[in-house]
């Protein structure tokens, strides 16, 4: 994937082969890391990217388009957030999420049009999965920094790298950390050239038309100044004490390390030292990681302390099974992110457990909770197979005394009765119960929680439609540490209550009152001036009637 085909000698294949130009919208969504919807629901779901745009040129927060869940850096301020422990493997574009899209016909890609209809500017990379031999692998088509763009819908049309391979799968990577609110995408249009005959198609897939392209030269990796084995015959670098070499190598990213390993025997020895692989973050190299790479690292490093496998092996069942086997052997795991395997039930040293979007069931979760008494962070967002959440909260109340983070966003089985048990978790700082009590009367559960959890910093109550000023008041009176309060979609909240929250919560920094219909926009504007240190979120819908659509 390193080869840059866009040299002077690059000839676009459509120039010497008769091919048909084709424009197509997304046919199917294959994979994604972020979603705002329950799996049985299509509002805000990735599936909205299929077919022609539905809302463009309207701008705003519409359920008919794909909606990403996170925005800004609010979630990075959370207690349970894992800091980058391998800064050398840092991704300069800072991609946080991706979505993989399939198109009906394979084309040689030339143009891509991304219909962004809310907070545009988050696409940072575009990949294509080549169908052509010899390497059927991911090809980087475009890369760029996240963009600041005015609050308008737009068709994003980046200049893609010219390649001569056929592909029908595209992956978009997003970095939403600079956005003021969620971003939303309506459609993706791929334009390119399609082989006009089956013969042509088969020749391209087998790599037979490839000979027109010049093979890129292998780049020189190491500078001659540091190391010149031929002339001097002496590797000055290796005069350094071994510990110093290892120390220097610790600052290298994985790619440089593997290059060093190819220099000579001594360098190889140093660069594969297990000490260098105690903490691993393979997410930036997802397109290169498979069972073999993983096995190599696992054997290399018996002292593995941290391992980030995000984005790796998402299209491979073998990979998942491989990791499951590994988990069975290794019981030291402390942090788990968006992964569940039954073998995890053996773990007992967990501090942080993030099972977002997994299919974990009640009994497995309760076993894990009981075995890991030191658990501080429990995240079970979108876990739709959990049907006895009330019981799970009771287990947490009894066994996990140190609980600081609880997030069960968009789960459906919690009741107001169950939520009362959080009152007995005095260390609780972050409580995300968004979309948990959509259509039930919350009763006095917030009063109980407010009296028990005085340290609450983040409270997310999105779509608690039965909530009103009276029931929310105890929180504002008691939880003075609150920095984030999310009241999205609560119809009955009044302006008076919002103003009281702004006035009486000294540490408040974020207040989300989108779709709170009784709060007028003019009032929000006044508050934004009066309380400039507080971000007041309010989503909008500017409908543009497009009769041609």
């Amino acid at each position: 994937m390193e080869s840059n085909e866009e040299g002077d000698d690059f000839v676009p294949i459509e120039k010497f082969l008769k091919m048909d130009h084709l424009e197509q919208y997304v046919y199917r969504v294959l994979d994604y890391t972020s979603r705002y919807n329950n799996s049985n629901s299509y509002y805000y779901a990735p599936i909205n990217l299929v077919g022609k745009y539905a809302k463009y040129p309207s701008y705003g927060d519409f359920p008919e388009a794909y909606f990403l869940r996170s925005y800004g850096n609010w979630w990075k301020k959370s207690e349970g957030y894992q800091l980058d422990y391998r800064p050398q493997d840092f991704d300069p574009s800072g991609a946080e999420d991706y979505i993989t899209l399939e198109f009906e016909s394979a084309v040689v890609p030339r143009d891509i049009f991304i219909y962004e209809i809310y907070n545009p500017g988050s696409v940072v990379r575009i990949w294509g999965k080549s169908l052509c031999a010899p390497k059927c692998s991911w090809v980087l088509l475009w890369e760029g920094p996240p963009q600041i763009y005015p609050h308008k819908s737009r068709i994003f049309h980046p200049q893609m790298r010219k390649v001569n391979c056929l592909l029908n799968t595209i992956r978009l990577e997003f970095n939403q950390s600079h956005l003021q609110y969620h971003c939303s995408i309506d459609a993706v249009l791929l334009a390119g050239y399609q082989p006009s005959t089956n013969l042509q198609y088969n020749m391209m897939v087998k790599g037979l038309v490839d000979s027109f392209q010049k093979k890129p030269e292998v780049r020189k990796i190491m500078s001659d100044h540091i190391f010149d084995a031929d002339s001097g015959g002496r590797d000055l670098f290796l005069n350094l004490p071994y510990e110093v070499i290892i120390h220097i190598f610790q600052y290298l990213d994985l790619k440089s390390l593997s290059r060093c390993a190819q220099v000579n025997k001594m360098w190889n020895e140093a660069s594969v030292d297990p000490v260098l692989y105690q903490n691993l973050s393979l997410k930036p190299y997802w397109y290169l990681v498979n069972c073999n790479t993983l096995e190599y690292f696992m054997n290399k490093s018996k002292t593995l302390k941290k391992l980030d496998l995000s984005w790796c092996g998402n299209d491979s069942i073998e990979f998942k099974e491989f990791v499951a086997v590994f988990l069975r052997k290794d019981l030291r795991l402390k942090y788990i992110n968006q992964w569940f395997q039954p073998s995890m039930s053996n773990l007992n040293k967990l501090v942080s457990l993030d099972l977002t979007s997994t299919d974990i069931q009640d009994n497995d979760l309760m076993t894990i909770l009981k075995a890991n008494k030191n658990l501080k962070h429990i995240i079970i967002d979108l876990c739709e197979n959990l049907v006895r959440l009330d019981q799970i909260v009771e287990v947490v109340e009894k066994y996990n005394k140190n609980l600081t983070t609880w997030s069960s966003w968009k789960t459906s089985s919690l009741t107001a009765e169950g939520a009362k048990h959080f009152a007995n978790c005095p260390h609780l700082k972050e409580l995300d119960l968004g979309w948990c009590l959509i259509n039930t009367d919350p009763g006095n559960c917030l009063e109980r929680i407010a009296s028990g959890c005085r340290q609450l910093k983040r409270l997310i109550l999105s779509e608690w439609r039965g909530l009103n000023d009276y029931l929310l008041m105890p929180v504002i009176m008691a939880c003075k540490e609150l920095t984030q309060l999310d009241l999205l979609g609560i119809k009955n909240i009044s302006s008076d209550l919002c103003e009281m929250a702004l006035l009486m919560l000294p540490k408040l920094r974020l207040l989300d009152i989108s779709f709170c219909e009784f709060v007028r926009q003019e009032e929000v504007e006044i508050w934004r001036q009066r309380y400039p240190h507080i971000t007041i979120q309010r989503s909008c819908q500017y409908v543009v009637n497009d009769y041609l659509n």
Partner: protein
Amino acid sequence: MQPPRGVADGVGGWRAYGIDPGEFSFHLMRTCERLVKLGRFTPTNPSDLLAKSYYELLHHKKAVLGSSTACVVLLNKENCTLYTANIGDSGFMVVRRGRVVRRSEEQQHYFNTPFQLSLPPPGYQQDVLSDRPDAAIADNFPVEDGDVILVATDGVFDNLPHSLIVNELVKVQGERCASRLQMVANSLAWMARNLSFDETFISPFAESAFANGINTIGGKPDDITVILATVAI
């Protein structure tokens, strides 16, 4: 594949609770349309489409509250069959060469209280009539080229005598021209509206009231929506 047609009639009583009665029915139909565009429906099962759309409303960020009757019809050209789903007192009617060959049944709990899909505000669940979407009457029916299909709210059926509707529909038997269809649809809507304000007219609604022991006369001012289509195979 023909797109489905449907009407939904919001229940006006919600105005007293500060809820726009049109909102629920509007979103219900919009969501049906979107599900069809995304291919998330079975062409032989409009009641499932209605149910999916109803459950979807809960996931809207904007709290969509209220209740509504609904009628959705779907023409499957392959087997020349019309698939229908109806809940409450909106309905459809198929006319072939001057004869009504099929019409929907009204579903009422009691007089002037139709079956309805509803999403009441939390805490009001006990006080509100709410029928599950599977209470919809599903029907299917073979159609012929030229058949006239009318889908309308109760504002039409409660004010226009049966014979008057049939007289109008006959005019567009086999009609392929959209503007002529539109003209007849307009005249049906206008007649229904005019008669609904006629205080001396013995409307179908008044007859039905009389049969239920209520002595009333005149039309019934109500929301009026008319969808008119002809079968072209």
